[in-house]
């Protein structure tokens, strides 16, 4: 899993990093992005370009976004 902790980075740097990582993503890899906000614009970029995501907020208020380009990967199972 590719870890992308962007919680201390100012908008829109996290989006740029996530999109660059997504473009290089292999078929069996998953990106785990940790963000202080839910990056809604990113979801539009992902879904329009064959990506899949699952976003979930933890008890501390941080967002965990799991990204892949393989519809066969169940992203919900990655969050513990």
């Amino acid at each position: 899993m590719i870890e992308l902790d962007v919680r201390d980075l100012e908008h829109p740097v996290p989006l740029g990093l996530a999109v660059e990582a997504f473009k290089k993503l292999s078929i069996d890899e998953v990106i785990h992005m940790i963000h202080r906000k839910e990056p809604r614009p990113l979801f539009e970029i992902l879904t329009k370009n064959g990506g899949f995501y699952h976003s979930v907020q933890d008890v501390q208020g941080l967002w965990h976004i799991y990204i892949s380009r393989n519809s066969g990967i169940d992203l919900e199972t990655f969050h513990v």
Partner: protein
Amino acid sequence: MFNGLSLEQAPPISVVLRFFITLPIFGIVLALLMIAAPDELLTLGHWYSLGAIHLLFLGIVSMGMIGALFQMQSVLGGAPIQNPHRHSLIIHALLSVGITALVGAFVWNIPVLFMVASIALGGALIYFATIMLPLLFGTLSHDTLKGMRFSLLSLFLTATLGVIMAVSYGSGVISDHHITVRTVHYSFGLMGWVAALIIYVAFQVVEMFYVTTSYSDWCKTNVKRIIGSMLAFKIVGLVGNLPFVWVFDTVVAVLLTGFVVTTLKRLKTRKRRVGDVSIWFWFAGLGLLMIAIITYGAFLVLGLSSLVSVALIAFALFALAILLGMMGKIVPFLVWFHLNAAGFMETPIMSTIISTKRLKLTFWFFITTALLALMAPWYPWLLRGAGIVALGLFTVIATNLIMATRLYAHVLKTGTKFSFDIP
């Protein structure tokens, strides 16, 4: 794994850019007016002065803010605007015609142009209300969306009273309540529309762009309530011809001072001190807002008309500073976002879409314009200098926008799309 968000949250780039690109055109007209008639512009209540005020607050500030609202409303989680391209085209056309007619009516004193302005601006705002307000009622989770709703309601009241006054100027029938109507018109325009919207946008973007601590829930909940109730009390005071109406202005001034202090505190203690021209605009804007508050307070005590002029100029420049700072962030983001959403490999990185050099140039033109304009009530010839520098400012803004648009169009036409092997 789609979690229920619309795939089409963001409106097309043209929806926002058409408002932004019109802004420097009105800015250049304003700059020419400053060069041509500085003395008239500094005379409160002069027709040229009213023309300049409406060029600034409608043609520049409101044009930019309405464009930004099209983007923010949906991205913040409000219901997406259906047919945004068509709606924005109609609103933009009506606004442009209305503002041009209104400024022409003030400058050349042509009554029929007041009627044209009334129809076009009234039409634009009713149209805007019918598409935007229904999306902002119902269950809203976001404080900024609630603040936008309050600001839009203030804008419609401001506009309604503006249309009433334009009709009375056009027909030559001025009512006994004209001064009250005018005071309520500019109070709601400046505080309910401009200040409240900037504060609620700040609640969202300061934390997001500069990684600061968030504003307190008390602020997010109560700013609109305090501004709204003070404006309502002010109307009652004005209509009833009651004394001490200035108390309501003072409460709003204290609130705005609190906003300046809390925002400065957050910006000064931000986690990452990354060089960013937009933060210069925030510091400048907050400083200008304090100048506006202090000079307005001094006017209430001393009664010097030059102090009202300084307060109004400083307030307008505060709004312009925040708008320009935000545009420097929004425009590169929109170009980057829409090219990436379309899957182009050649999407430029955001920092190269408008170069830092040109953003810095924009800032220094702005600061020079501001300093000259603030001294102009005592040295009117300085307003001519401010106009010349403002000509440079709006030319650079136009260049920034045109070059960003051309870059977008170039990638759209010649770029290649990235693709994955189908699993």
